C-alpha cells in the first residue's frame, strides 16, 4: 500500500480535509453539515493517512488518544446540558449568550458546544476503532 503518490497526496490533502471538516461542522447549524458529518469527514482523513503511511503516522497526526477525544466530546455534550440546566433549570436547554448580548447570529453557545461534542465523539470513536483494527491485523503478521 506504499504508493508514493498517495503518500505525497495525503500530506497536502489531510490538512485540507480536516480544516474542511471543521467548516462543515461549523456551518452545520444553518446549512448542510454538523457534528456527525464533520466528525465522519475528519475520521476519513485519518483513515487516509493510516492507509497511506501506516497507523503510527495517523496516530501522530491525531496528537491525542482517540478515546480521550471521544471522552472530551461526551464531556462537551454533558457540559452543554448542564449549562442550560444550571442557568435555566432545564437540562440541555439552548443557551445563546452572544446572541442575547449583541444580536449576532454567530453559532456560539451551548448548542454549538453540544454539536462540537458530537463531532469529537464521532472522530474519536471511529479513529479509535480504526487504529485498534489495524493493530490487531498487524499483530497477525
Amino acid at each position: 500500500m506504499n504508493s508514493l503518490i498517495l503518500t505525497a497526496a495525503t500530506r497536502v490533502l489531510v490538512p485540507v480535509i480536516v480544516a474542511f471538516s471543521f467548516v462543515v461542522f461549523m456551518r452545520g447549524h444553518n446549512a448542510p453539515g454538523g457534528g456527525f458529518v464533520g466528525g465522519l469527514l475528519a475520521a476519513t482523513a485519518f483513515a487516509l493517512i493510516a492507509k497511506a503511511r501506516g497507523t503510527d503516522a495517523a496516530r501522530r497526526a491525531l496528537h491525542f488518544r482517540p478515546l480521550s477525544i471521544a471522552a472530551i466530546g461526551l464531556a462537551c455534550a454533558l457540559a452543554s446540558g448542564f449549562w442550560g440546566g444550571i442557568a435555566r433549570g432545564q437540562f440541555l436547554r439552548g443557551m445563546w449568550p452572544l446572541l442575547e448580548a449583541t444580536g449576532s447570529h454567530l453559532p456560539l453557545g451551548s448548542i454549538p458546544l453540544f454539536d462540537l461534542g458530537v463531532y469529537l465523539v464521532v472522530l474519536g470513536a471511529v479513529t479509535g476503532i480504526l487504529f485498534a483494527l489495524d493493530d490487531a491485523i498487524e499483530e497477525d503478521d
Partner: protein
Amino acid sequence: MTDAVAPGWRHLPAVASALAFAGFVSLVPAVVAGGAPTLALPWVPALGVEAAFRLDGLGLAFALLVTGIGALILLYAASYFRTDRRLGSLLLTLSAFEIAMLGVVTADDLVTLFVFWEATTITSWLLVGFDHERGAARAAALQALVITAAGGLALLAGLLLMGMTAGSWRLSGLGALQTSTAYPLILGLVVVAAFAKSAQWPFHFWLPNAMAAPTPVSAYLHSATMVKAGVYLLARLAPNLGDTALWHGLLIPAGAITMLIGAVWALRQTDLKLMLAWTTLMGLGLMTLLLGVGTPAAITAAVGFLLVHALYKAGLFLAVGMIEKGAGSRNYTDLGALARAMPVTTVVVTLAAAAMAGLPPFLGFVAKELIYAATLGNLLLTLAVVVANALMVACAGMIALRPFAGPPRSPNPTPGDPVWGLRLGPVVLAVLGLGFGLLPMLAENWLIGPMHHSVAAAPLEGHLGLWHGLGLPLGLSVATWALGLGIYLNLNRLRDGLAAAEPRLPRTEAWYDALMAGLFGVARAITAATQTGRATSYLRVTFAVLAVMVWGALLTGPIAWPSLAQLRAATFIDWAITAIVLASIAIVLRSRSRLTAIAALGGVGSGIAFIFILYGATDVAMTQLFVEILVVVFLGLAMVRLPTAGDLPFRRLNALVAAALGIGATVAVLAVLGTPLDPVLSTFFEANSYPEAHGRNIVNVILVDFRGFDTLGEISVVVIAAVAAIAVLKRRVR
C-alpha cells in the same frame, strides 16, 4: 490481626442507628397522646402513589425495636467481625436492611410498603448468604429468597386488590374490608405473604436453614425484626381484615402448628443457635395464633409477647455468639461449667432465659399470664399453649444450665468473656427484659398500650401487672413450670427419641425441594429445546418470528392501500438508481470475490445516498456517503484476515424465510404510505427551528437542540460501541 475497618468508622452505623432510636423516642409522647406523625412525599402522582409514612403505636414500637436493637447489633457486629475483611460490606448490608425494615413498619402507602418489604427480602438474602463461599449458605439464602419473594408477590397482588377495593392507597384509609367480595382473595394473599415472611407452617423450614447466617444477622433478622414483618403485617391489617371465620380459620391452626413444631424440634437440637431458631418459630406461631384469636385480650397478649420475645431472643442469639467466641463452640454437648470463666455471659443468658421461661419478675411472666388469660376460652388452645410453653421452659433450662453448670467442658482451653463490644448489647437487652417486668407500667404506657390501640382500634383496658391474683392463669403458669421441669429432667431421652424418629417423619421441606426440582427440570427442558447454541438457528427463528409478526399485522388489521395518485411517479433517474442498487444487491449475493462484494456493497450504500440527495436529505446523504467510505475501508482491512466465503450453498428454508420477510417489508412500507401522515411534529420543527433555536438547518437543530437528549444517548452508544470494539480487538486470543 488488623482491623478491617478503621476504629472511628467501625461504630458509625451503630451511632447512626442509636441517633435514629433517640429520634423515635422523642416521638413517643406524641404517639402515646394519640397522635400519629405523618410524612407524605409525592412519588407517582399520576397513579396516586405517595412515599407516605405514618407512625402510630404499632409502627413506633416496631421502629424503636428496629433502631434500638439495630444499634446494639451493629455495635456487636463491629466487634464480632472486627478483623474480617468483609466487615464493611456486612455493616453496609445490615444498615440497608435496617432502613428497609424501618420503611416496612412506618410505611402508610401500600406501594411504599411493598417496596420496602421487597428491600428487606433482598437485603436478608445478601445477609443469609454472607458466607457466600459456602454452598450451604448460598442454598439457605436462595431458599429464604425464593420463599419470601414468592410471598412478596402475593403481597403485591393483595395490596393492589386492597387499594382498588378500598379506593385508597393509604393503609390508614383502608377501612373495613371484611364485607367486600374480594375479601377471601385479599386475605388469602396477605396471609401467604405474612406466613412466608414470618416462617409459618408450611413455609417454616427456611428459618432454621437461614441459621447459615452469621450470629449478629440471625439475632437481628431472624429473631427481632424481619421474621416479625409478617406478624406486623397481620397486626397492621387486623382492623381491616380481621375477626372473621376465615381469619380465625387460617391464622389459629397455622399458628398453633408452627408453635408446636417449633417447640418440639427445638428440643431435638444440640446447637444452641439452631435451638433458638426453632424456639423463634414457636414464638412466631404463638403471635400468629393470638392475632388469629383477635379478642382484645389476645391482642394485648400478642403485642406484649412480641416485645418480650424481641428482647430476650435477640439477647440470647447474641449471648450464643458470646459463648461461641469465648468457649469455641455453640454446641451444648461440648460445653460445661463455664459460669466461673464467663460470668457476664452467664448472667446475660440466665436473665434472658428466665424471661423466656416466663419466670417472675420478668416481663416474660407478665406476657405469659396475658397469653393464658387470652386463650382460656378454648380448651384445646389452652392445652397447646401450655405444652408449647412448657417446652420453652425446658429449652430455657437447657440454654441457661448446660453450658454453665456440670462437668467442665470447652473446646477453648481458656474460655472467657469476650470484649466489651460483644457484651454491651446482650446485657442491655437482658436487663430491659427484667426492668420492664419490674415496672410493667413503663412497657404498658409506652409500647404495649399504643400498639394495642393500633391493632385493636381501641384503647387498652385494664393494666399489666406481675400479680393478677390467684386465678386460672397463675395455676396454668405453675403447671407449665412443673411440666417444663419434667421435660428438662428427661431431656436427653426425649432428644434421642426425636432424633431417632426424624428420618421416618415426612419432611415438610419436601414440597419445596420437589417444586424447585420441577422448576429446574422445566427450565432445563426449555433450554435444551430452544438454546442450541447455534447462532444461525437463532437468527432463523428471529427472522421467521419477525416475518410472522409483519404478515400477521398486515393480514389481520384494516389496511388502506395508497392510491397511485398519492404516490410520486418515478422518473428516469429513480428507475436508474433503483436498478443499480438492485444489481448491486445481486452482486453481493452472488459474488465469489470478497473485493467485488465489498465494492458492490459500497454501490448499494452510495445509491441510497443518491436517493437521499434527490429527495432533500442532504445531511443524511453526506453522512451516508462518509459512512460508506469508512465501511469499505474497515471491511477492506478486515477482509484480509477473514476467509472468502466462496460459494454459499443455497439453503431453501433460509431463502423462504428471507423472502417472506422481504416481501412483508415491502408491503408494510406501502401500507404505511396509505395512511395519512400526521405532520404535527414536523410542522412544529419547521415553524420554530429558526425563531426558537436560531438554526436554519432544521435536521441539525432537531439533532442538537429539540431532541438533544436523544442525541446525547446516541453518542454515548457510539462511545460504548467503540470502547467495546477496541476491548475485543485488544484482547489476546489463545
